[in-house]
């Protein structure tokens, strides 16, 4: 009897506590990003940005009068872990929305979980497959590889180039962008006459560059790649005195790239980058100037490290989400989803976001700035 009493009491108590927890519930946002592992240089600034911004929003009074609570997991870049954490976020943590998926692999693993649970999911990864075809609950913030290709080919066309050489990394990023670029290159009246690749950890690309240089008619070279590859390509390109215009991708749009490649070797390189990279160079009337400067300042004061494009993706994802919760007027997943889809003219670090039912990215080519490296620093050319 005594035993039954105790059990009943404990049960009631637990139930009571459970309800108490519910009653105090803040708006809970889930995130799974790759803070460690091979994609950590992307995931690390993303995690820092999310924590930083949530603290800032809460200090300013929260959203709809409630505090935001961030539940964040580190999936180490492993799609299996990302799926497990996504499941834990929707089932155990009962979050109202999920941000994350640092890489395309982890994002694709989270999508089915979010779609089944009908929880809005904003991905931070590049591939177009994430939002094409459109899935009701899945959104993303970074521009796609295809847009970077389009921006580069636009610039080449303006300069009158019709025959180009490509040297691409064989890693995921390089291979994907290579494929996307080849798919649209014909639309710009440009022909790829030399097509070479290199491994992600190769130390010398002079054979490939020699072959491109010796191909007759090549007017410019495009290097879709990530990590050390593009820096080594740039150094080899200077070593061989190739002398043709060199285009790099948005994958290396960071100040670190100029240091790695060396200012003299990188002179004259063009690449599409975001406003965040050239925050100080934006004209006064640029709509992104205020947003970008504010984020740059708070990130750099809080972490002591320079801002990166990748942290900017997380910044935009949280901004889109908070904006949607405000417009929805309640922290209900279905209402938030509706509101995200109606995001209009939201200025982020990557561009101005206007979503529709058919476009869950909401960026156009103006999101990219064509940048040129001159005397070891960036210059906006378009």
């Amino acid at each position, binding site marked *: 009897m005594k035993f039954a009493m105790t059990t009943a009491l404990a049960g009631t108590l637990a139930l009571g506590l459970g309800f108490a927890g519910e009653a105090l519930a803040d708006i809970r946002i889930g995130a799974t990003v790759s803070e*460690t592992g*091979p994609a*950590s*240089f992307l995931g*690390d600034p993303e995690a820092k940005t999310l924590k930083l911004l949530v603290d800032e929003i809460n200090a300013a009074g929260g959203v709809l009068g409630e505090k935001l609570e961030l539940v964040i997991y580190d999936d180490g870049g492993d799609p299996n872990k990302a799926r497990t954490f996504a499941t834990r976020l929707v089932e155990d943590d009962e979050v109202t929305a999920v941000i994350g998926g640092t890489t395309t692999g982890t994002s694709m693993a989270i999508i089915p979980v979010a779609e089944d649970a009908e929880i809005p999911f904003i991905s931070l990864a590049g591939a177009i497959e994430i939002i094409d075809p459109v899935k009701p609950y899945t959104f993303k913030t970074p521009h796609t590889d295809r847009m970077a290709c389009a921006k580069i080919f636009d610039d080449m066309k303006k300069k009158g180039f019709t025959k180009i050489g490509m040297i691409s990394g*064989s890693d995921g990023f390089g291979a994907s962008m290579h494929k996307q670029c080849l798919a649209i290159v014909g639309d710009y009246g440009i022909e790829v006459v030399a097509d*070479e*690749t*290199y*491994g*992600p*950890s*190769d*130390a*010398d690309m*002079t*054979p*490939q560059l*020699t*072959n491109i240089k*010796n191909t007759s008619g090549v007017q410019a070279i495009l290097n879709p790649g990530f*990590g*050390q590859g593009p*820096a*080594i390509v740039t*150094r080899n390109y*200077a*070593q*061989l*005195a190739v002398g043709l215009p060199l285009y790099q991708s948005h994958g290396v749009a960071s100040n*670190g790239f100029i*240091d*790695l490649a*060396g200012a*003299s*070797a990188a002179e004259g390189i063009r690449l599409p980058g975001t406003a965040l990279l050239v925050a100080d160079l934006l004209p006064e009337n640029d709509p992104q100037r205020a947003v970008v400067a504010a984020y740059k300042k708070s990130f750099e004061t809080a972490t002591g490290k320079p801002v990166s494009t990748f942290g900017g993706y997380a910044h935009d994802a949280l901004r889109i989400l908070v904006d949607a919760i405000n417009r929805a007027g309640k922290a209900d997943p279905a209402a938030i989803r509706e509101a995200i889809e109606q995001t209009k003219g939201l200025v982020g670090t990557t561009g101005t976001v206007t979503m529709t039912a058919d476009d869950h990215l909401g960026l156009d080519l103006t999101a990219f700035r064509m940048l040129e490296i001159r005397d070891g620093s960036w210059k906006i050319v378009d």
Partner: protein
Amino acid sequence: MAEFMQFLLSGVTVGAVYALVALGFTIIYNASDVVNFAQGEFVMLGGMITVFSYQAGIPLPLAAILAILVTAAIGVALNKLAIEPARGAPVVSLIIITIGASIFIRGLTQIAFDKQLHRFPAFSGDTPIAIGGATILPQSLWVAAGALMVFIGLWLFFTKTLTGRAVLATANNRIAAQLVGINTRYIMTLSFALSAAIGALAGVLVTPITLTSYDVGISLALKGFAAAMLGGMGNPKGALVGGLLLGVLEAMTAGYISSQYKDAAAFIVILAVLFAMPQGIFGRKVTDRV
């Protein structure tokens, strides 16, 4: 002809990197039959420690020496803390311990330093040297000279010095070595220190070419290991020849056939060589008395 020359010089650049890494495997393998999979991590540490000491304002030569000494100390620690306590274990278990150690070192490095790519200036500038219509960077000559020096040093060590012979004796039969008065514990510690120092030297020399970050060790170790296997594990001459051969093979495939098949072609040749000569080109024959 200028093309061929450029492919060859590219092959020598890359091959010298492989050879230098491959040479690092030699000593530990000779002392204990263990293939040290943390060797790539020694290369990475050499580069990373130099980068960060250089950034802290220490002159480059001093930073390089510091990196080599610290890495050698880490090599000794690896032996004392992980290999020695498991000394009764079979060679396979010891190899697995070195894999674990490499993951551990990589993890520590990304916390202690960071996850970004780094580079420090080349020793003699970046002005390319023209040879027969092709070009090579001065740093590649540093790497090639480094590989040659380490090779000569190792060759003298194993054939002319008593300690070097003691290392070989320890690998051959540890108990017999102890019976003739060789301090096998000391030999093991020494071999880890030397291997780590050679790895770190490789890291210092190759970083201006390959760049460095906490995770470059795996891929460098893999190529270095392939080069060592091709030339014959444990033989310094094999490491040197294997590395250069592998580099030239990759460059020629990338230049004349297709850059897509570069790695595949190199590994097909390695397989073919090992099929015909399982001990590698200069490997010692293993004879067991039964």
